[in-house]
């Protein structure tokens, strides 16, 4: 024993810190089109190479290639492009609204738009998504009113959440969008439970859970995979690996040595690792997993490999912990640009049309914001009525909460 070496801790560090030159050339990025597409009743073990690989459809020439090409028609592609662009324009506007003091907080999903948009186009509206705060694209792709999203961000008089939630914590049962929680991870096992509910009833609805790379470390991740495996729940378990969890890189969650998708195999669940900035790859992988779930074959884990191109939230300054140019150096590009180029390569789209669409979505967002601001912002104008803050703690208000409401009312 005494001749063994002194032990030491390994504290993982990201490859680049502020001041370092960004060089992602050692990142192993398989070519588009090479990943095989197994039948949906494949065994978990047989998906191993997919879990360690990367499903990609769009190649360097912006063409859709390989077995995973979902062969979408042009209208669908354009719908996807528009929803992603609208999402980005929405984010930009709301970010600025926060900077202008109109609300307390905001979170963008810049660079990750393909995840929510492509998935929500695959899923049905009566399937249920259990999103994190970076899947606003689901609501936008499904046509949820922008004004209502903004009303929520402003906590104003028309906020569907009555001012109760931090900005971006939307909820809409009608749009298959479960109430977002501020607590990381918790909804991953809830998604499985919801899917189990559908199976229990003999229905045909499926669920989709979302978790960030950093949040996979929470116990909920393990509980979700365990339950999904044991009861063969019809659910898609998405890991959005955007490389960062606030200031911590994915290696702090254990994602450096083994890809997150590979966790799935040990639970006898198929794991797919997907280029998250490739709209077509996300679409195709989700479609595969959804078919599998609907065929009563159980859950699939999908790691969406992407990059958080901006700060964690309006409270964050990423330049403190990663090089400012890291985002630009991300080798998998930008999902909007890539889909745009694909449409151009197909000959059905042009830079001019892209510019026009950009103006359109910006204008749409601007108009919505004007509309929403009529209902007030967090700092000014109309608010939800104060008494409502005592509602919905329980279905019916118990005496002690009623008295507290009276106590507050008596003060003013």
């Amino acid at each position: 024993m005494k001749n063994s070496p002194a032990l030491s801790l390994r504290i993982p560090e990201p490859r680049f810190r502020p001041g370092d030159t960004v060089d992602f050339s050692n990142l192993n990025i398989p070519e588009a089109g090479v990943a095989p597409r197994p039948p949906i009743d494949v065994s978990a073990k047989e998906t191993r190479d997919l879990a360690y690989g990367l499903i990609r459809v769009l190649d360097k020439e912006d063409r859709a290639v390989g077995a995973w090409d979902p062969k979408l028609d042009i209208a669908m592609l354009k719908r996807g492009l528009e929803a992603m662009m609208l999402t980005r324009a929405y984010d930009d506007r709301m970010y600025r609204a926060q900077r202008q003091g109109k609300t307390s907080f905001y979170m963008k999903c810049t660079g990750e738009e393909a995840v929510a948009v492509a998935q929500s186009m695959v899923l049905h509206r009566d399937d249920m998504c259990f999103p994190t705060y970076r899947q606003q694209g689901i609501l936008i792709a499904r046509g949820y009113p922008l004004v209502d999203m903004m009303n929520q961000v402003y906590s104003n008089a028309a906020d569907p959440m009555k001012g109760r939630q931090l900005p971006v914590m939307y909820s809409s049962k009608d749009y298959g969008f479960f109430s977002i929680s501020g607590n990381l991870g918790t909804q991953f096992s809830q998604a499985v439970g919801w899917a189990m509910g559908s199976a229990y009833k003999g229905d045909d609805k499926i669920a989709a859970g979302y978790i960030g790379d950093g949040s996979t470390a929470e116990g909920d991740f393990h509980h979700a995979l365990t339950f999904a495996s044991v009861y063969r729940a019809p659910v898609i378990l998405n890991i959005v690996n955007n490389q960062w969890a606030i200031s911590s890189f994915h290696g702090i969650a254990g994602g450096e040595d083994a890809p997150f998708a590979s966790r799935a195999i040990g639970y006898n669940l198929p794991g797919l690792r997907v280029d998250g900035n490739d709209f077509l790859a996300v679409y195709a992988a989700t479609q595969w997993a959804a078919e599998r779930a609907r065929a009563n074959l159980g859950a699939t884990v999908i790691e969406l490999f992407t990059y958080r191109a901006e700060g964690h939230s309006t409270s964050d300054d990423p330049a403190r912990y990663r090089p400012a140019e890291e985002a630009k150096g991300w080798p998998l590009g930008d999902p909007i640009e890539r889909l745009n180029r694909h449409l151009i390569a197909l000959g059905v789209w042009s830079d001019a049309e892209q510019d026009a669409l950009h103006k359109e979505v910006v204008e749409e967002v601007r108009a919505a914001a004007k509309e929403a601001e009529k209902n007030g912002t967090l700092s000014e104008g109309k608010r939800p009525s104060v008494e409502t803050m005592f509602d919905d703690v329980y279905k019916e208000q118990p005496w002690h909460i009623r008295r507290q409401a009276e106590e507050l009312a008596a003060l003013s």
Partner: protein
Amino acid sequence: MSAPWSEVIDPDMDADTEVIPRMNMIQALNSAMDVMLAKDPNVLIFGEDVGYFGGVFRATEGLQKKYGLNRCFDTPITESGLIGAAIGMGAYGLRPVVEIQFADYIYPAYDQLVSEAARLRYRSAGDFWAPLTVRSPYGGGIFGGQTHSQSVEALFTHVAGLKVVIPSNPYDAKGLLISAIEDDDPVMFFEPKRLYNAPFDGRPETQVVPWAKHPLSAVPQGYYNVPLGKAKTVRAGEAVTVLAYGAMVHVALQAALESGVDAEVIDLRTLVPLDIDAITQSVEKTGRCVIVHEATRTSGFGAELSALVQEHCFYHLEAPIERVTGWDTPYPHAFEWEYFPGPARVVAALRRAIGA
């Protein structure tokens, strides 16, 4: 000395069922679940060992056989996972009734209960809710050591959005559990495990008398409910009000008997929402109050009761409110009866309260 429950005020059994069999508390709970499984296809039961085996306390015995694998099944040992799944199912429209094998093991699920189940309706402004019922045996008196004896209710009474229910006898157990399952809010349903098979008045040296000899073991076989939020005066008295719940109701009755103090004993039954009117009416009459619970004293639910009583009845109080509780230590295996707040300690408090 006669059994303390001979003083129990009879239940008002308005349920229109013919047969009134005798049930112990486990049978009553089982019957509640049986009734609800039959009545509502959205009710399902799961938890560790509750399926084929019927639970380590046998509360779910026979239910899997009767209703099928889907309606009553085992889960992996992850309290957090099973509550998370139950929330998802609740949001789907089901009414999951889950068992946490011992209340001592509920902590892994604390986040799901506090951050999620309790807040879902509020944060979504009524868009989603999860009507789950969480059953869990709690409390001591069974030489279970520090991890099979805990009383955790106060950790949930502090959480807005949860209801907290604790029965003290088979009749209430069934009626309250049915109400909990039918309730659209998440309900924490804590079962005093020492009362499962027989009433217990805190005197381990006396012979066990089965529930069958207790009037509140007359439990209708069919559907009935006992409303949440309503306390019950189980002994009328003029000298001092005793607030108790669970096993402590029986201890309080025994202490009243032993001490000869004319105590009014209130079985709270629901801690949240609390039946404040029953409490204030009694304390305004007696001017004195003793609170009894098994949980650790500091920040126990007795603190809230004491605060409320003095807020509502300050000008009626003639003596300090007394708390008789478990000590601020874990439950030590060798000292079951030194820890358990038995009748001797309640008697002493009653005497102090009336100034004797």
